[in-house]
């Protein structure tokens, strides 16, 4: 059980670092790190859907849009506090996700990627089309975040929302770890590896595949809400199809086979473009591509997967990395 103790220690250290960061780094960095938390939640959803269940989504930006707009519309029209609107955003996004999950049951691999991508492409146009509700091209301005009165003297609004975001992230990570570690996680991965075999043991593929879609969409919805609130603004152009691709790349870069990958991926999505911009303004998308290729070649498990392997100091077991690269075995149809 040494491994489990090590993992708990690592989780504790990471939690403490996250808790202390706002008092160490400048305010603007705290603002950026809030986004990291939100992206980590979105990627965590992709890890469940794509990493664990093997369904590719190139359309998760759409769920971020759902989350962001639900919160924005509820705040703008009804003055609803985000404590209420974030759960609503999760539910709405989750329902849309389940709907897409039903479509996904009939699609696989490239076809699924294309179908979800079409959703990502359509998102900005849909948002512009229903301008009465969404504010059209102009988008919606959200009220600024304010820390509750009790904490007003202690935390700046930026720090306050940083903690809100990471509290959400913490809870969602724990919930996900709980489920992925047991029967649900086993079933998701079994369906990914060999659907026919999994089904013959009584695993219901429709239930789990739809569940994975709903789950990841709900997480993306929460992430979208958590991004929209501190940004205080949503507009169609914030949700271009590039966002969806960025999320998937972040997941793969971070490490799509482990929950730690969500953290690493969140950091990459937020900071990689900023670092690269220092070299050249046009560089980020190129670097994303190059980084992706490098990760595939050099560290198939992504940043988190590679770090884990180094930390566990075991020789790479045969098939450990290799297995990921091979096609999942599918029984031959007769």
């Amino acid at each position, binding site marked *: 059980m040494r491994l489990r103790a090590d993992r708990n220690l690592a989780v504790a250290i990471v939690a403490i670092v996250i808790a202390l960061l706002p008092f160490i780094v400048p305010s603007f960095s705290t603002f950026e790190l809030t986004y990291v938390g939100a992206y980590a939640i979105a990627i965590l959803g992709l890890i469940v859907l794509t990493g664990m269940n093997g369904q590719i989504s190139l359309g998760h930006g759409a769920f971020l849009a759902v989350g962001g707009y639900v919160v924005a519309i509820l705040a703008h029209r009804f003055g609803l506090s985000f404590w209420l609107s974030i759960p609503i955003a999760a539910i709405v996004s989750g329902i849309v996700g389940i709907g897409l999950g039903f479509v996904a049951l009939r699609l696989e691999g490239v076809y699924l990627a294309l179908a979800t991508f079409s959703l990502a492409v359509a998102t900005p146009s849909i948002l512009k089309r229903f301008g009465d509700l969404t504010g059209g091209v102009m988008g919606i301005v959200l009220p600024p975040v304010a820390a509750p009165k009790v904490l007003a003297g202690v935390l700046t609004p930026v720090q306050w929302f940083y903690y809100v975001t990471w509290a959400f992230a913490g809870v969602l990570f724990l919930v996900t770890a709980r489920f992925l570690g047991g029967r649900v996680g086993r079933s998701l991965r079994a369906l*990914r590896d060999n659907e026919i075999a999994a089904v013959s043991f009584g695993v219901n593929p429709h239930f789990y595949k739809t569940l994975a879609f709903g789950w990841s969409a709900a997480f993306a919805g929460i992430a979208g809400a958590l991004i929209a609130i501190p940004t205080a603004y949503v507009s169609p152009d914030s949700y271009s199809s590039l966002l969806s691709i960025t999320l998937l790349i972040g997941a793969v870069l971070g490490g799509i086979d482990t929950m730690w990958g969500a953290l690493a991926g969140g950091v990459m999505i937020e900071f990689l473009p900023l670092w690269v911009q220092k070299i050249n303004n046009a560089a980020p998308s190129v670097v994303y591509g190059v980084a992706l290729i490098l990760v595939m070649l050099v560290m198939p498990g992504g940043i988190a997967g590679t770090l884990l392997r180094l930390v566990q100091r075991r020789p790479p077991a045969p098939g450990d990395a290799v297995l990921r690269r091979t096609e999942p075995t599918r029984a031959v149809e007769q």
Partner: protein
Amino acid sequence: MAAAPLLEVSDLHASYGEIEALHGIALGVERGAIVALLGANGAGKTSTLRAITGVVKTKGTVRFGGNALNGHGPEDAARLGIAHVPEGRGTMGALTVWENLMLGAYTRRDRKRVLGSYERVVGYFPWLAERKKQLAGTLSGGEQQMLAIARGLMMEPQLMLLDEPSLGLAPIVVREIFALLKTINARDGVSILVAEQNTTVALEAATHAYVLETGRIVVSGESQALLRDDGIRRSYLGY
């Protein structure tokens, strides 16, 4: 035999889309028996097993322990006690040995009894316990086949369907696996229906056999009788 067989299949048709793969199969597996299902590639062995558990679309009757099975999904087959060890073993390479075994017990909620089954399975395959954290994909072919059987046993099945357990394995490993199947059958009373191309090994283990050809059963009978009949051997068993 006065009692109805454990598994009773009659006029079973199965199709993949437009194409019908089985054209009315009838077979039975008595309680406690080992039955072989023989035939060449594409004869319909895999389809027969899949039709029994309901993985493919079927028409006809499948009765298991007095329950009508068809029309229901594979979940019901699993719940009623049919373990399907699929073609190509179906071990989940990216899952650990332990996770594979737990998957076998998917339909069972009583953790204590599942652990009891685990102890029993480890009795047959002691190496599983030492390697339970290993990824199944890193096991050898023979070990994966054994894991697949062990996983089937985790269901505490009344009937095991095995789809070509000899596939791609060295003859000595094949013998070992069939010897284990006989032991499991004798000791735990698990009935077995095994689809095989390796007719010699299968007929030696089985009491009864069916020979499939292009979706129909063309010959059936006692294994010993089939083994002795030179005509049948040459025409259908291919040696």
